[in-house]
């Protein structure tokens, strides 16, 4: 039985006791899957499992608070669920986690680039098949094969959790750990190589095209303030409506700082960005900092206390300045 069929069977068994089960379905074209909310048995057959399941369904969980729901997750998504549980934003009794091993998901932008290189438009994609390590996209009657490793999302190339860290129903064989991961994230390495003023120029260059759609925030499973986000409140008035790079950059700083010690690097902020701004790099750096300071990784242990919500009388790694 394939992973997908096994998932469907388990979901059908559990569905009567659940408000809905969140997963993925075929989207508006062959290249895109979209979130699926399974409310009845008929919806279960729409479920998809595979390399096109790019979204993080954990983002919807807080909006179902108080209702018992199921969620289908990849390994990375499960960390977001753990982080939500850890912060008591959702209740363990009210969430049923379905999962299977994940072999990586595609980065649609990379697929688009590959198609463009073959003279094809992603808008004409008719059929996508993922066979082990190869993605084959048929567009305008022409099939283009590309290795999954070349079009996979950056996070998948360094994936530490191909299998869910927490699941009620884990089906099929666990996926193998990623071998020969690159030593460092390419974006962080590029930023590290710059001087400090160059980095400011870098951010100003990229934030200049931000359209303040807040897709990065809306896609973020840890951004749970929703309508009460300080980016749009008048009191306190953290950000003005002014269309300046400073305001746009300040929002990214707000987002990053509010995720300090909480971000699981699911990469949804960057994936959702319609302007392709590399906003994840800020969070990656913060995670690296948190790891160095507190030896902590978000979203792996439900019982752990987030590092900024606790302290030690004598900190191990904070060396205060003597004047």
């Amino acid at each position, binding site marked *: 039985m394939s992973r997908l069929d096994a998932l469907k069977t388990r979901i059908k068994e559990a569905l009567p006791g659940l408000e809905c089960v969140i997963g993925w379905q075929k989207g508006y074209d062959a290249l895109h899957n979209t979130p699926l909310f399974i409310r009845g048995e008929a919806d279960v057959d729409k479920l998809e499992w595979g390399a096109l399941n790019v979204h993080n369904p954990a983002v919807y969980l807080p909006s179902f608070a108080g209702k018992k729901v199921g969620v289908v997750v990849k390994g990375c998504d499960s960390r977001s669920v753990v982080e939500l549980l850890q912060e008591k934003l959702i209740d363990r009794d009210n969430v049923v986690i379905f999962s299977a091993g994940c072999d990586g998901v595609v980065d649609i*932008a*990379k697929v*688009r*680039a590959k198609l463009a290189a073959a003279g094809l438009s992603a808008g004409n994609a008719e059929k996508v098949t993922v066979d082990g390590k190869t993605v084959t996209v048929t567009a305008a009657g022409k099939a283009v094969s590309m290795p999954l490793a070349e079009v996979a999302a950056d996070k998948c190339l360094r994936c530490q959790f191909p299998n869910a860290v927490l699941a009620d129903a884990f089906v099929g064989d666990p996926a193998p750990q990623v071998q020969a991961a690159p030593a460092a994230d*390419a*974006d962080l390495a*590029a*930023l590290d190589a*710059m001087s*400090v*003023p*160059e*980095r*400011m*120029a*870098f*951010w*100003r*260059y*990229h934030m200049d*095209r931000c359209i303040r759609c807040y897709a990065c925030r809306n896609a973020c499973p840890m951004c749970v303030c929703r309508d009460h986000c300080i980016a749009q409140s008048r009191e306190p008035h*953290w950000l003005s409506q002014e269309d300046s*790079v*400073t305001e746009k*950059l*300040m929002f990214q*700083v*707000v987002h*990053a*700082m509010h995720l*300090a*010690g909480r971000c699981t690097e699911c990469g949804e902020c960057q994936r959702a960005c*319609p*302007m*392709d*701004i*590399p906003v994840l*790099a*800020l969070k990656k*750096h*913060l995670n690296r*900092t*948190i790891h*160095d*300071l*507190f030896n902590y990784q978000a979203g792996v242990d439900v019982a752990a206390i987030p*590092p*900024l919500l606790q*302290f*030690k*009388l004598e*900190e191990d790694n*904070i060396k*205060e*300045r003597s*004047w």
Partner: protein
Amino acid sequence: MPVLTGKELRIVGFLCNWCSYGGADTAGVGRFNQPTDLRIIRVPCSGRIDPLFIAKTLINGADGVLVSGCHPRDCHYAEGNFYARRRLEVLKRFLPILGIDPARFDYTWVSASEGQRWQKVVTVFTEQIHALGPATRHENVSPELLAKVASAIQGGNRVAA
């Protein structure tokens, strides 16, 4: 102010009400000489300071930010400064990736009786900021620098291409 243009920089200080603000007051009452670049904002506790206060201050052009609270184990609210210490250290290490010199921000602890320590902290920090000079006006990034960093992250510019 015009007289001081070029001489004085804008340094913002966030001081807790119970220790450091008292310490600054003690320094004043004791008539200790201090540089006058620092503008003090009094907050209830160093634990009240959202790291975003500091980030926003620096992004919007302040030349330096100094945070001071009660010594660890001496917080008026028992543990506010312990939480503050973690947040402020995270912020200090976050600033460089954003392109802000981390030397423009510092945090320390000064008690209400430590007028002399306050004088020293203010003097040393102000000298440090003067050595760095006025903060760069980020709006005026040179086109050459922008061009240099534009392609730093591969794929980061897919829309414009």
